[in-house]
């Protein structure tokens, strides 16, 4: 009964905006130069592969899985790595070699890769994290993650897909948001939210998110 108000099924019509957006993207894609897709694949399999894996499913906990992320989200991150708005000693020298026309095809490439299931290990922590993901923390004013990142952490519009992400990476990003080291979030939301979270909450919710995704 406590969680009767958790029901997201009644929300209905979650994808209408996304549908039109996707339709617009499809039209845009039809006009894109086909050569770019090949360039993107070359870049992906020669440069990105070292950390993110050739299909975007990084096997290294500190590097994020990027397979299946929304195209717009990937483009935004790449642009902000380039501009320095998102700081990363690892990504900065790599993106410095990217041409502006590489970004969209790279995003299309990784976005269309099939995301692999995550590697959650602690079932009890997954359960705690699930409650946090669905309820947030009423006492400290942490909104539930599900509001933006959606059930099963599939993401929506500007809010990235998180399902199956490495827990180590997720915790690191939450800490970066909390400290302000990462500051390219929408409307400062994640900085506020992460600042209100305890380390234990970060670990739990990351473990839950890692448990999601296709098996």
């Amino acid at each position, binding site marked *: 009964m406590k969680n009767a*108000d958790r029901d997201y099924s*009644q929300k209905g*019509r979650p994808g*209408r*905006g996304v549908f039109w957006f996707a339709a617009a993207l499809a039209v845009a894609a039809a006009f894109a130069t086909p050569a770019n897709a090949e360039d993107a694949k070359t870049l992906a399999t020669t440069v990105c592969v070292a950390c993110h894996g050739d299909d975007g499913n990084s096997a290294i906990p500190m590097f994020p899985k990027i397979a299946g992320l929304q195209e717009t989200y990937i483009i935004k991150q790449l642009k902000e790595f380039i501009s320095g708005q998102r700081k990363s000693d690892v990504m900065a020298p790599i993106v410095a070699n990217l041409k502006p026309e590489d970004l969209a095809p790279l995003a299309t490439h990784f976005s269309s890769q099939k995301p692999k299931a995550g590697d959650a290990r602690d079932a009890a922590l997954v359960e705690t994290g699930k409650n946090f993901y669905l309820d947030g923390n009423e006492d400290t004013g942490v909104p*539930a993650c599900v509001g*933006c990142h959606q059930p099963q952490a599939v993401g929506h519009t500007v809010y990235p897909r998180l399902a199956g992400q490495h827990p180590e990476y997720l915790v690191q990003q939450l800490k970066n948001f909390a400290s302000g080291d990462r500051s390219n979030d929408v409307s400062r939301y994640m900085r506020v939210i992460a600042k209100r979270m305890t380390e234990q909450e970060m670990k739990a919710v990351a473990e839950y998110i890692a448990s999601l995704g296709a098996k």
Partner: protein
Amino acid sequence: MTRLLNVIIVLLIWPMSASAQLLAVADDSGTPVWNEMRGEKLIALKAKGDPLRGEISFEPCQGCHRAGAVGRTSGSYPRLAGQHATVLIKQMTDIRAGRRNNPKMDPFIGDHAISAMEIADIAAYISALPIPDANGKGPGTSLARGKELYVKDCVTCHGDKGEGKSEKFYPMVAAQHYRYLLREVQFIRDGDRRNSNPDMVKVIKSYTDTDMEAVADYMSQLAPPKQ
């Protein structure tokens, strides 16, 4: 020369902006401001909100107010579904102007996050949502006393079914979560909700804690008004 001029201008303007800030602070912590019709409140009220855009803008709000704006039965976050658009606009613009304290919500409703137009859109979306039955209800132990108080003091503004009055900015109170009602009634009585209607503050000034529990209990048991 230009630089010198700039410095002079800044020095001239500084005290002006500082005193403007002081004024704003005094305004925020002083006597209650019920409902001045100006600024972005007026803009949002006059704008034609679009529920489809509002649905998208409402996404971050769902983290607390839940999908469908049903709130939390614990009362930590109010139910907003079906609330009058005017009331929603008043409260949203009041909170972000500092006329109603809400530290949990502040960072999500600031003008860095949403525009006055989005406030109108969100209000249009939420006000048209269905009001579900399952709300957080009071213990049901002092409903007779609750009804007596409600009929005597509340019914003129909030209506006999708790439906409120859109054009007067009086909120619908029926089927709201009990704990939320209780908390806000207390804030209003004690002067902690500074955008309250002064008439209401006067009316409930003499309420005891038991009176507030009874009237909140009664309101929480009222069925959702027909939409």
